[in-house]
């Protein structure tokens, strides 16, 4: 079976600066894949290139059997690729429910579809916040809202940019549980992380990115066994 999401020879620029060099990666249906790497390695840019916010200058991205690398972000999102940005980008002028409403898209065949009740089960913290302005939420709640908002679009695969960043340890554990819950629903998850502990708790496979290039590609077990790779690319 071909992978749900695959990128080949992906290159991307910010203005004149060449950020991604021939990045290749894959995520199969129902798989959790993590992009590891230090700050500025190109993890966020990889995710932005996949969703079309930083249009790739070269390379191809295939999602569910269809080329998406020349499409606009809204077209990619409507094909079932969800995206949760690193800085969450909550609509602070809107209430919690309105934020979720913005993400709502029709249900898709063969893809887990989400309702408010299901989202509240995933993130119980959101249940009582409906009419609160999103601006009043804590960082952890905003992260949950950002994920809930994207799930409301019924994606087949979700891109999470550093979901554990800046969160209290107890919330990080909740996030990990939520990612595993999404996986058990049948979603593919591609997330970027600097927190190896978090990655180890949720991911099946890992890519390590450094200076815009993929340096390692393997299962979490292989990564765990390879001290040399970890100290070369991940140690601070």
């Amino acid at each position: 079976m071909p992978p749900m999401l695959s990128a080949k020879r992906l290159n991307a620029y910010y203005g004149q600066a060449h950020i991604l060099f021939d990045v290749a990666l894959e995520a199969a249906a129902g798989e959790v894949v993590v992009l590891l790497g230090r700050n500025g390695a190109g993890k966020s840019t990889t995710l932005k290139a996949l969703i079309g916010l930083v249009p790739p200058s070269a390379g191809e991205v295939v999602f569910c059997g269809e080329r998406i690398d020349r499409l606009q972000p809204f077209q990619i999102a409507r094909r079932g690729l969800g995206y949760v940005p690193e800085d969450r980008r909550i609509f602070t002028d809107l209430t919690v429910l309105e934020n979720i409403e913005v993400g709502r898209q029709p249900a898709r065949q063969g893809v887990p579809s989400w309702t408010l009740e299901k989202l509240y089960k995933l993130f119980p913290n959101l249940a009582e916040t409906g009419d609160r302005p999103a601006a009043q939420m804590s960082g952890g709640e905003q992260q949950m809202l950002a994920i809930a908002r994207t799930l409301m679009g019924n994606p087949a695969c979700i891109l999470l940019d550093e979901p554990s960043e800046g969160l209290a340890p107890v919330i990080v554990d909740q996030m990990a549980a939520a990612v595993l819950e999404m996986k058990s629903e049948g979603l593919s998850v591609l997330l970027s992380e600097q927190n190896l502990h978090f990655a180890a708790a949720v991911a099946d496979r890992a890519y390590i990115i450094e200076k815009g290039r993929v340096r390692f590609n393997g299962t979490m077990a292989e990564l765990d066994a390879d001290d040399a790779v970890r100290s070369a690319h991940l140690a601070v």
Partner: protein
Amino acid sequence: MSSLVIQFLNGLAGASTLFLVAVGLSLIFGVTRIVNFAHGSFYMLGIYVAYSIISRAGAGGGLGPAGFWGGILVAAMVVGALGALIEILLLRRIYHAPEMFQLLATFGIVLVIKDYVLWAWGPEDLLGPRAPGLGGSVEILGRPFPEYDLALVFIGPLVLGLLWLLLNRTRWGTLVRAATQDREMAGALGVNQKWLFTAVFALGSALAGLGGALQIPREPAQLFLDMGVIADAFVVVVVGGMGSIPGAALAAFIIGEIKAYCVGIGQVGFLGYSVSLSKLTLVAEFIVMAIVLVMRPWGLLGRQQGAQRIAAGARERPAAGRAMQIAVLAVAGALAVMPFVAQPYTIVLLIDILVYALFAASLQFLMGPAGLVSFGHAAYFGLGAYGAALLVKKAGLPMEFALAGGPLAAALGAVVFGWFCVRLSGVYLAMLTLAFAQIAWSIVYQWDQFTGGSNGLVGVWPAPWLASKTAFYYLAFTLCGCGIWLLRRIVYSPYGCALRAGRDSPLRCDAIGIDLARLQWAAFVLVGTFAGLAGAIYAFSKGSISPETLGIPLSVDALVMVLLGGIHTASGPVVGAAVLTWLQDTVVRNTDYWRALLGAIIIALVLVFPQGIAGFARRRWARSEAA
């Protein structure tokens, strides 16, 4: 007491009208980030279309309320449909262009619509019928108050309420508010911005058309409504905070009331002087805006905007290449021998071009290297012209002194205006410069005894040794040439470097101890001086001046010259001034509809050269050098 109540109601009626025009502009800016200069034109079209529909509906005799109000709604819808068409055909292609080019394109639309109205409805004022059933007046506390104005008092809040419901109680409204805050994220969630933008633009245009159509019983349809209304609408939107609808309502209320009381109170004695407050109405809103912006730089209910892209890509290059130097020398040489070979008319045209080239170069310095956009640059041109003319006419000074005094007057104006302006940034700064220009304009326009009012000043002639066109041409050539050269030198001086650094990274400048606000203030004074010099030369070349030298159209001309030429090239404004002045001259002589042609040319140029003509040429040049 009763008169105070009547003034208050008058103010509310005025506020309703202001709100209807401004809210559409605010909505459009909030979502699309387009500053739509054509919004006043949509308002004007609203009046004209409503006039045609209603007078036709009432032609069979007996216009019923259904015909009247139906006609107004249809007029609003027609204007909304036109807005949608313009968005789809033109604006959609330039959302990624820098904001200033979008502004320029909408200004092209202003010109086209104006001439269309002239062609379709003719130049005469058209007075529409009264509203059936609302033609009389009601008695309020013993004083008559027009029934129709009372209706307006309710229509404004009604529209506000409907808009609130639309934006807060529908999915479409939720998407609009989300896109207003972060359109990129809305897109990544699957929201198709394209149709959202079209719908918002159509709604905003329809609201402007509605605001216009509702004025049918109150004021005649006139050709100059577009510019007056757009200035009002900008002020309301900026005072309220760009993109904020409650802000627009609040600002419309404050400004409407202040204007009404200014008219109502009339003459007041103050420290032995008699001040006419009713004359103040022309500037009252601009004074309110200046005060609000200094205290709350993002308007009453607005919030900070993201960084503004004045013009992307090309930046100043350190030095002109050999080929460029030769080209400049060749042009200068050709200009120097012109009086020996050219027709007298060409010499007159060349003087105009030289004056405007210096004027545009001063604006380019402000917009390019300093990164500050001015919508009211004519203020300094006009102050220079009036300063020089008044020194000759009132103080009896010789022309040579006046030529130096004019720029000084403009520099003084820039000291005052600049002090306020450098506190702001982006669109807000541009609006404040517009406000100051409008204040200067209305002072000159109303101060009959000193400035000659709307008639201006005549008999401003140069000294005898400069009386011949040839001699004056060489004067203009020398002064304008030196001015442009100096401006260019300053861009590469240490001061210019600090200024450009501040434009590119204000935070880093702060961190290394550069007082950016002071540098920018100095930039205002510097360009004010050069624009004033251009104005002074202009005054003596024409022999007479009028308040038009401070008007919005001249400010827009300067913007067009800079943007046509390319914002980050020193040669840009010169090219732009030559092209626009020549175009205006040729087009005006050959057709009655020169505005429409000019507008069409501007639109075409924006679509073809989003980097400006000189910017485009330089890119071509750089590409061929690289190849």
